[in-house]
């Protein structure tokens, strides 16, 4: 009898031992469903080959990425060990304790110097200038532009353009030229249109698009440290920027009122538009002849400057964070140590990921690797982002509510839309006691 019991106990003990060891060898990273997530899976496969730790990159479509991630966080679920979360989540996720504080890790590895400054500021640090870090910049991203080189370089078009506008047809240097070129190529009778811009108001598409204009026109969304928005969000510059964005909407293909990254890449692949706004992360698909029949004649440029020479772009991209409710935090930490190594970052860039490592970004090798890497490098050092406060989602929806009817349907004026938005934001900040 005693023997049987002892045998059973050993068996159970063995089972537990196996169970825990098997668990610690597996990690799950949660991200949105897009190409970079596939590149990350390839990268972590190499980690598995080195260490034997299996890592799965689990994905979900962008439209419910935020909802799914926060549902899991709110339920304190341990399904994901790490998450590559959007930059504006950081306030909400850190204040609610969903993310592990990585300040010590950050300082130990001097990541503030290793990674490009903008990525540290927007993906990792919260609150602004606090020296507290919650994630490791993983996928750098910003908005850039693709254009049809064959349309731009057609001698007849060049001649006609010069005759009409008095300067040479080339990738635009400022927003006025952007507007002129969009107008020039807008020919609905030929089923060719001037420009593709973001207009989707279900998440941050439209807001990102408008941010490109606002930041380059020298405007800001507000003072991120004092929460002051009056005469910042509704400043003269922002009104001009929004009016220009509305004007550009007039040169988009028909029905362009719910477009985001998928539609904007289609504008190039389907011969719809001369120029198209999109995140750099979606450009690999445009140089691939399998996904873009016009791959050979597609060019790229950085977001042009505004009337006063300011040149900024809206930030996309994500940092990787460890979820507080994970049962494998130590193992996840080890993975991050591997992830930030220079070799890993270099390999990450080779696979198609947009590294945030300053050293890799500055290398000749990286900048010449693709037709858009140089524009990406230039852009990543002048990017700005949306509010990262925990109530960012309310701010985002309010901005969508106010500017969408103006941009897509011309209801009211830009000034009215932005004045109303300033009021909404003030009310929201008052509600959360931010002032």
């Amino acid at each position, binding site marked *: 009898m005693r023997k049987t019991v002892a045998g059973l106990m050993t068996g159970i003990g063995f089972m537990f031992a196996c169970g825990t060891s098997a668990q610690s060898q597996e990690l799950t990273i949660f991200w949105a469903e897009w190409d970079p997530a596939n590149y990350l899976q390839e990268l972590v496969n190499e980690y598995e080959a080195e260490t034997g730790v299996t890592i799965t990159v689990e994905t979900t479509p962008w439209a419910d990425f*935020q*909802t799914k991630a*926060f*549902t899991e*966080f*709110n339920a304190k679920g341990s399904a994901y060990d790490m998450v590559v979360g959007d930059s504006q989540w950081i306030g*909400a996720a850190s*204040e*609610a*304790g969903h993310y592990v504080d990585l300040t010590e890790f950050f300082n130990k590895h001097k990541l503030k110097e290793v990674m490009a400054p903008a990525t540290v500021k927007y993906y990792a640090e919260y609150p602004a200038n606090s020296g507290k870090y919650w994630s490791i910049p993983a996928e750098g991203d910003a908005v850039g532009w693709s254009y049809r080189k064959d349309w731009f370089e057609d001698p007849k078009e060049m001649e006609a353009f010069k005759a009409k506008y008095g300067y040479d047809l080339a990738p635009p240097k400022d927003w006025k030229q952007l507007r002129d070129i969009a107008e020039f190529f807008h020919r*609905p009778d030929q*089923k060719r249109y001037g420009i593709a811009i973001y207009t*989707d*108001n*279900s998440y941050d598409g439209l807001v990102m698009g408008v941010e490109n204009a606002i930041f380059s026109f020298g405007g800001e969304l507000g003072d991120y440290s004092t929460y002051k928005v009056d005469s910042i969000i509704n400043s003269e510059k922002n009104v001009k920027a929004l009016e220009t964005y509305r004007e550009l909407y007039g040169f988009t*293909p*028909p*029905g*362009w*009122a*719910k477009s985001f990254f998928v539609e904007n890449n289609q504008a190039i692949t389907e011969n*719809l538009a001369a120029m198209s706004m999109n995140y750099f992360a979606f450009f690999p698909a445009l140089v691939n002849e399998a996904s873009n029949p016009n791959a050979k004649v597609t060019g790229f440029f950085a977001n042009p400057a505004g009337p006063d020479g300011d040149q900024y772009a809206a930030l996309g991209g994500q940092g990787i964070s460890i979820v507080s409710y994970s049962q494998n935090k130590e193992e996840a930490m080890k993975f991050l140590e591997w992830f930030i190594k220079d070799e890993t970052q270099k390999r990450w860039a080779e696979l198609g990921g947009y590294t945030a490592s300053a050293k890799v970004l500055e290398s000749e090798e990286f900048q010449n690797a693709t037709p858009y890497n140089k524009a990406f490098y230039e852009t990543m050092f002048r990017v700005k982002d949306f509010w990262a406060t*925990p*109530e960012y*989602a*309310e701010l*985002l*929806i309010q901005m969508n*509510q106010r500017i*969408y*009817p103006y941009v*897509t*349907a011309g*209801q009211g004026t830009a000034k009215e839309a932005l004045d109303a938005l300033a009021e909404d934001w003030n009310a929201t900040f008052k509600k959360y006691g931010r002032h």
Partner: protein
Amino acid sequence: MATVVMTSLDSRSRAASRGLSDIKIRNLFIIPTILFLIVFNIFPLIYSLGYSFTDFRASSNAPANFVGLQNYRELLNDPFIWANFAITAKYVIVSVTGQVVVGFGTAMLLNRAIPFKGLITTLLLLPMMLSMAVVGLFWKLLYDPSFGIINYALGLGTFEWLANPDMALYAVAITDIWMWSPFVMLLSLAGLSAVPRHLYEAAAIDRAGPFYTFFRITLPLVAPILMIAIIFRTMEAFKTFDLAYILTSQPTTEVISIRLYKMAFQEWQTGRSCALAYIVLIMVLAITNIYVKYLNRVKER
């Protein structure tokens, strides 16, 4: 009443020989359902009523503070919410009216001896068997101004069904009508086939015209079952989410359930969204009640 409905267990049956009584069998069937309802419907319903008086946010660890009627007060004073309700009302009226006209009309056409009647009826029922999300994605392609087949077939050029703020809601309603008219048709068909033949024969003998026959015989006799179809469709249309969410993102198509979804799962204003959900629930109950009263009156006639 219950004793009339419930028949006694046959004493020779296998269940009886195992010592099961009617009551035991009844409980066996009903208790799991009741438990399920309590756990998944009643409990959350009451729990969320509590939340609707707080500023609770599921996304934070902050404790919920009691704020009284503040959520309700603010929601009912929010012009955007009122716009959402107005849009929903417009949508319900357009969509349900369309479904009744099309559905009842088709049922009238089918309610006669025609070849392949069974096959035609089955084929007409297909739309409502599809998933809402799939229908939404299909119609988004059909409506596309550049390559959509609707503009091509109607010769409308690049008419913007979904990007035009005035048209978008109607476009969503048309899709809903396409999808759910078969449901109204099915119920109407059942009602129509139950109208006794001899009434029509009597009307024919009296030389009643087709309009007179329709308004005095067909409609009154089908009305109760048609009312049931309308009740179901109104409740569903009031709660519409998928179609409108997938097809377009116009502010003019932001029905109340989309606003509710955004408030609850994008903004994580859990307390306030509970309050909004209660306002919607009360409205649906009120509307349904009016219908049911009317239905009872129709049945009495």
